[in-house]
C-alpha cells in the first residue's frame, strides 16, 4: 500500500493538483511557484465553498494561458460579494463587476473594446448559475451567437445561494430550497424538463464547451487551458458544491463533486463546434443515494417513509446521462 501512495504522488492525472515534486513544466498551474493567486486569501467565502475553490483554479489557469494579459467581468452573486467587501478586494487581476444579468454582455464589450484598440488582452466572464442560466441567459446566448472572443465560466452551485438558497433554473429535481420546500405531494424542486446550459451552449456550435467539477482540479485546469487555446465564444460549466445551500458538511465539498460525476448526475465532457469530443469515464460508479444522502436538501427523500419513488426518478436521470454520454464505455465499474 505504501508503494501505491508513492506512485500516486508522482502520477500526473490523479485528482491531486498540488504536486510540487514534479518538474516545473509537469506541475499543475496551482502548484507552480508563479501562479497568480487571482483570487487571493482573506476573502469571506463560507467554509468549504466550492465556488471560491473553482474560481481560484479557473482564473489562475486562464491567467497563465493568457501570459498574464487578461481582464475579467463578474456577475453579481456570492463570488462578487465575498471577494470585494469595500475597501477590500481579493482580486489580483483586473476585475469589473457591473450587474447580475449582464456579465456576458460586459465581457463582449470588453473584447470589442480591446480589439478596437489592437490589444491582445484576453477576456473571462464569470457568474453563478443564476447569473448564467437564468437572469443572464439572454446576454450569454447573444455572446455565443456572435462568437465574441470570451471565455465564460459558470460556477454552478444549483441555486440562488447568495440571497438565501432559493431555487434557480439549475436546481435539480427534488432538492429542497427556500422556495421549493418539502411541503406538498412532490417535496422539493419539481421534476421539470431541466436546463442544461452546456448542451444549449453546444447548440450554438461555439468553438469550445466543457463541464468540470472541483473534485478533479487538474482536469479543471486542463479544460481552462484548452479553452484558452481557442478564440471566439467558449463556455465552461463547473459544478461547485455549496455546503450552506446543500446542507452538507463543509469537508464534503470535494467528495460531493466527485460523487455527482461518479453517479452520472453530472457528466464530464468536452465539445467543439457542437460535437462532443471527449467524456471523462466514470471510474467507480455509485448509486445516486451515495450522493444524495450526504445532503440535507435531500433529507426528505430518506426519512420514514421516505420517497424511494423520487430517488428512483433521480437514478433514472443519472442512468440517462450515462447512456447518453457513454460514461461507462471505457471500463467503469457497475454499482
Amino acid at each position, binding site marked *: 500500500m505504501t508503494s501505491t501512495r508513492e506512485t500516486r504522488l508522482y502520477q500526473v492525472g490523479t485528482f491531486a493538483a498540488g504536486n510540487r515534486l514534479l518538474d516545473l513544466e509537469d506541475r499543475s498551474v496551482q502548484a507552480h511557484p508563479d501562479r497568480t493567486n487571482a483570487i487571493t486569501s482573506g476573502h469571506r467565502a463560507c467554509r468549504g465553498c466550492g465556488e471560491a475553490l473553482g474560481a481560484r483554479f479557473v482564473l489562475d489557469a486562464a491567467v497563465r494561458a493568457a501570459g*498574464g*494579459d*487578461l*481582464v475579467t*467581468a*463578474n456577475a453579481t452573486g456570492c463570488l*462578487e*460579494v465575498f471577494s*470585494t*467587501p*469595500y*475597501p477590500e*478586494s481579493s*482580486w*489580483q*487581476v*483586473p*476585475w*469589473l*463587476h*457591473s*450587474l447580475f*444579468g*449582464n456579465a456576458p*454582455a*460586459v*465581457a*463582449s*464589450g*470588453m*473584447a*470589442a*473594446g*480591446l*480589439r*478596437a*484598440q*489592437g*490589444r491582445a*488582452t484576453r477576456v473571462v466572464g464569470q457568474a453563478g448559475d443564476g447569473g448564467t442560466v437564468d437572469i443572464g441567459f*439572454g*446576454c450569454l*446566448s*447573444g455572446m455565443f*451567437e*456572435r462568437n*465574441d472572443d470570451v471565455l465564460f465560466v459558470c460556477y454552478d452551485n444549483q441555486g440562488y445561494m447568495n440571497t438565501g438558497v432559493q431555487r434557480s433554473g439549475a436546481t435539480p429535481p427534488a432538492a429542497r430550497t427556500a422556495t421549493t420546500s418539502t411541503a406538498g405531494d412532490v417535496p422539493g424542486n419539481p421534476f421539470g424538463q431541466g436546463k442544461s446550459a452546456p448542451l444549449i451552449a453546444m447548440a450554438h456550435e461555439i468553438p469550445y464547451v466543457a463541464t468540470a467539477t472541483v473534485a478533479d482540479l487538474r482536469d479543471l485546469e486542463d479544460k481552462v487551458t484548452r479553452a484558452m487555446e481557442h478564440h471566439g465564444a467558449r463556455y465552461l460549466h463547473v459544478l461547485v458544491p455549496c455546503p450552506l445551500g446543500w446542507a452538507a458538511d463543509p469537508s464534503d465539498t470535494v467528495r460531493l463533486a466527485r460523487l455527482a460525476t461518479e453517479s452520472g448526475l453530472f457528466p464530464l465532457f468536452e465539445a467543439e463546434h457542437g460535437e462532443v469530443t471527449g467524456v471523462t469515464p466514470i471510474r467507480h460508479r455509485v448509486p445516486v443515494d451515495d450522493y444524495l444522502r450526504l445532503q440535507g436538501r435531500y433529507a426528505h427523500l430518506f426519512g420514514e417513509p421516505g420517497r424511494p419513488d423520487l430517488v428512483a426518478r433521480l437514478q433514472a436521470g443519472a442512468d440517462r446521462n450515462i447512456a447518453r454520454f457513454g460514461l461507462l464505455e471505457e471500463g467503469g465499474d457497475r454499482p
Partner: protein
Amino acid sequence: MCRPQVVAAYPISPQTHIVEALSDLVRTGELAQCEYLTVESEFAAMSACIGASAVGARAYTASASQGLLFMAEAVFNASGLGLPIVMTVANRAIGAPINIWNDHSDAMALRDAGWIQLYAADVQEATDLHLQAFVVAERTSLPVMVCMDGFVLTHAVEEVDLPEQEQVDAFVPPFVPQQLLDPDDPVTIGAMVGPEAFTEVRYLMQQRMDTAIGTVAEVAHDFREAFGRSSGGLVRGYRLEDADTVLVTLGSVAGAATEVVDELREQGIAAGTLTLTCFRPWPDEAVREALAGARRVVVLERAFSVGRGSIVGQDVRDSLHDLPVTVVEAVGGLGGRPVRRSDVRRLVEGVAADLLPTGRLHFLDLDHALLASAGVR
C-alpha cells in the same frame, strides 16, 4: 466624426437609421478602428458599452422609449461606475398604450440615473451636442445622453453644417480614461459597498454632477470658439429682456416658442422664452438668472409625472422659490401630437393675462370631443 471605438446598439424606432448608418460606416471602414456589436437587447447594448469603456475604449449607443427602460438597470450602473459613455436618445413615448412617436417620457423616466442630459433644439444642435457630449463625458468621467425629439428631429431633413474631420479631431481629443482595467496594474471596479461608504460614493457623484454644470458651459464656450457657432450650453434665452411672461421649454418646441414670442411681442405682450439645453445637472443659477426679471413663467414640457404633474416645472419653481414669480405648469405634444404654434400662443396669452391657475397641470392640447365620446366628462 467623434471616432467611437465600440458601438453597441439594438434597433428601435425612431433610432434605427442612426445605428444602420453607423453599421455601414464601420463596415466600409469609413469609421476606422471601431467595433460594431449587434447585441440582442438594449440591456446588452449598455452592458457592452460598460465593458468597452472600462477597458479604455470610447463607447457609444443609441436608444429610445421601451429600449431605454429595458436598459435602465445598466444605465444607472454606467453612471455609478463613472464610465463616460455617450448615448443618443431619440425621444419617444412609453407604452402602454404603445406609441412610437415623440415625447420626453423616456429620458425623464431616467432623470435620476446620474447621467448628464442635454436636449437638442434642432438638427444642427443635435449634431453639435454630440461633439460636445464626448468632451463633457470624458472630462467629467460621467455618461451623457444627447436627447433629440424622435421623428421631429431624428427624421427631419434640414441643412446641417457638418464640421471638418480635422476640426472635430482637434475638438474631441483621444479618450484618456480616468480608470482602466489594465493587466499591468490590476484594479477592482464595482466592489460591494456597504453603509459605511455608500453615502460618500453618492456624495461624490453629486459633487461631480455639480462640477459638470461648469464643464457643460465651458465646452459650449470652447465649441463656439472652435466652430464659430453658438450651440449647446446650459440654457438659451430669447427676448428675455423686459419679458413679463416667459415660456420655458426643452427640445424641438424651442423653434415654435421663439416664433410665438415674436408674434406676442408684436401684439404688445412682453413675452420671452427660455430653452433648457442642459436638464441634468440642473443649471440652477443659470435658470434663476434668466428668469429673475419675469413676473410669470410657464413651463411647457412633453412629459409629466403621473400623480404629480410637471417634472421640469418643479425644478423651475424650486430655482425661483424666493422670487415673486408665478410658475404655471403645462404638458403637450405627448405621443407625437404636434405642438401647434396656435396652442402655444393661446397658452402664453392665457398666462400673460393671469387666466391659468397655478398648482395644477394644464394640458395644452386635450381633445375634449374624444374624451366625451369615451364617456369622460
